[in-house]
């Protein structure tokens, strides 16, 4: 049998039934982008899964070697475009460590508020896609409805809806307009009611429960071993959040909880994101109260030149641990190498563990709850 297996498949098994292989992707609505999954099936049950990456490999790391540090911030937008504003911060923190510049208090508040808005936006897309993949197109419309309000705020502040390219070493590109705080406040008041509706819509829906409870269980040990992070790790019972473990910006001054669930199935991964939206709203409300009325919004502008060394930053995006590793071999404006660790890559690597023994329709649910963004895997 082993001689005839396609590359990547490893499980050796004795079976009387005929196995067959199915190809899913690279153009498939529920692979969330250009990802190809090769499935080994026994009847309707998945025996093994092999992901094939690289359909959107754009060679960003090679390109970064001939770019300046500032240009790479724009590249980070295009990695995980759902959390573009968070990726910006990840790169910028690494540069700040190299340049040794700090951020004034108001700048930090702007950063944290935009981070949390980005997190809510990403989780709302998750909500929509999760419902949509289970067959409820209405959820897709719901999720994007509130997301547009966040885009309005982002557009007003950064000038762009999706690819923000906003943060700079020492602060951000612009100060926030006067309308920023009232708009965020109005949005939060609106979202409070909307979330109540949304939870009522999906959380106790019998179809959702049947299709997600006990499906795609990822044990605590496996989640750590594969390097999962973010909501996927916390749904498996590990309390790890970079905002709490290694606080960046002003997250150590804010009062918020890290929601943890223990079953590690699809339903928990859904619930944890809903809980995180509520935590983000809590953080945003605190920021609105504490937002400094006076003071500088960024520190003095300096040329972005990094001394020789290696700089590392990690932040918690909506998907998980996003790390940037910058190598400066010469003091100057160009990196020798920049490497990005995206959160979705280990999740897809662990997918094989989760789907074994499930049906294809369950694979769609599991993919939706992992919430991967493929360009950030392939880079």
């Amino acid at each position, binding site marked *: 049998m082993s001689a005839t297996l396609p*590359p*990547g498949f*490893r499980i050796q098994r004795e079976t009387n039934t005929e196995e067959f292989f199915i190809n899913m992707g*690279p*153009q*498939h*609505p529920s692979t969330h*982008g*250009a990802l190809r999954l090769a499935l080994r099936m026994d009847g309707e049950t998945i025996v093994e899964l092999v992901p094939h*990456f*690289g*359909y*959107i*490999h*754009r*060679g960003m790391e*090679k*390109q970064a*070697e*001939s770019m300046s540090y500032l240009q790479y911030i724009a590249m980070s*937008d*295009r990695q995980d*475009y759902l959390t573009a504003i968070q990726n910006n911060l990840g790169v910028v923190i690494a540069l*700040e*460590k190299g340049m040794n510049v*700090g951020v*004034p208090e108001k700048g930090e508040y702007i950063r944290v508020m935009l981070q949390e808005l980005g997190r809510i936006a990403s989780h709302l897309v998750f909500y929509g896609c999760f419902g949509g993949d289970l067959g409820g197109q209405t959820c897709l419309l719901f999720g*994007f*409805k509130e*997301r*547009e309000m966040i*885009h309005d705020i982002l557009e007003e502040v950064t000038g762009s*809806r*999706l*690819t923000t390219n906003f943060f700079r070493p*020492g602060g951000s590109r612009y100060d926030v307009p006067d309308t920023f705080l009232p708009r965020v406040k109005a949005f939060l008041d609106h979202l409070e009611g909307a979330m109540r509706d949304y939870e009522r819509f999906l959380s106790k829906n019998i179809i959702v429960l049947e299709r997600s409870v006990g499906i795609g269980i990822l044990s605590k040990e*496996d989640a*750590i*071993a*594969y*390097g999962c992070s973010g909501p996927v790790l916390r749904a498996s019972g590990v309390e790890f959040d970079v905002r709490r*473990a*290694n*606080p960046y910006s002003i997250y*150590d001054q804010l009062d918020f909880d890290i929601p943890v669930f223990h079953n590690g199935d699809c339903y928990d991964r859904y619930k944890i994101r809903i809980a995180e939206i509520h935590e983000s709203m809590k953080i945003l409300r605190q920021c609105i109260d504490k937002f400094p009325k006076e003071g*500088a919004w960024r*520190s*003095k502008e300096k040329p972005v030149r990094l001394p020789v*060394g290696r700089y*590392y930053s990690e932040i918690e995006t909506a998907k998980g*641990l996003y790390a940037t*590793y910058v*190598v400066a071999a010469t003091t100057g404006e160009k990196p*020798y190498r920049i490497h990005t*660790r995206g959160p979705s890559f*280990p999740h897809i*690597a662990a997918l094989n563990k989760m789907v074994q023994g499930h049906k294809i329709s369950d694979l769609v649910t599991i993919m939706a709850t992992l919430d991967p963004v*493929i*360009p950030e895997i*392939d880079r």
Partner: protein
Amino acid sequence: MGIINYAPKILDPIPGGKYVVNLVDYVVNWARANSIWPLTYGTSCCAIEMMSSSMARYDIARFGSEVFRASPRQADLFILAGTITRRMAPAIQMLWEQIPGPKYAIAMGACTISGGPFIYDNYAVVRGAQNLIPVDVFVPGCPPRPEALFHGLLTLREKILKETCRHPWHVGRPKDVSTMDRYREAAKTWAALEEMKDEEMAEARAKFKEEHPDYKSSFKPIRIKKEELPEVPRTPTHKGGLTQSELFAKLHAKFPKVSVHTHSDSPIEEVVAQIPADHPLEVIVDFEDYLPMVEFLKNDPEFKMDFLIDETAIDYDDHFDLVTMLRSMEIGHKLFLCVQLKKDFAIAEEARPTSLLASVPTISNLYPGAEVKEREIYDMFGINFEGHPDQRRIFLDKDFVGYPLRKDFTHPQMIRRPV
């Protein structure tokens, strides 16, 4: 469409018959232009804007395109949302072949027009969708707003409304032109036009000067007042687990050969003590110590480094640096291991770009997550991992020549950035 295509031949010679043909055209085009069903296809950022455009706020249903089909066999329109890579290109051509005619294509976003942000120094991106399939409408933007996509859709609609059964729709062919050449030509034409305009203006300028000899411009450049911004110091704080000095001392006791990156002559302990609190400690590990050290770090109760953040490599002239980033979930400290892998210069110089230059034992038996990371390093740098269960290329095609993240990598289709 068979019968309708014969209508002009029969009806046009008859007096008044062309009005009937025009009527048929009008009805057919009206039906076609008002229900253009797109294919569900998206690779990157533009796909999200495409999704936004079909949601409640923008509502693509107003233009009859709300039915996104998952199968190309039911679609009319191919919205190329997102970057096209060389690996994806055959799939795109196959999708295009599978769409039944009459079919249309919209290239959405800068990447599908020219390669966009990925035009220079890139070996993986196809510079423009028109090299693969015939494109009807180009929508610029990075990514374009939903309104821009609608503008593209309405432009396509106008194009469809001009169709006639006198010249039936046929599949176009991709224009086999290099995008870069077209841009250079366009830039030349533009410069020539500018010059022409300047010459024309010179006459007028001279005439104006004659008529108004004592004219003085009142133009004053507006200067935005620069804000006075303070210099803010950075205050790094340490949280979680052992400090860098403690980590290094404990590791040094067990493996005496470890050292750190340094550019000064001061003793290593001092260098470690000067590392800012939020920088993770990166130690240089001897090649023989690498596997024992990773095992030790994973199992030792004082370290308990059970979480592999990442594994990556850096290419230097004569060696690779393999960086393994570890973290302890329980205790909370981080430690980076850097192994220097000497390049194998016994290989003939011509064969070096395509051969594996270094070898290192795998750690994927200790950390299952390392498997894909090591495949990535193998793919990008050409480092061999001894004992790796499934060492294949991960991002690039299996017949790709060379290892892109090496500094001396060249690719025939790579365009250098003009300096």
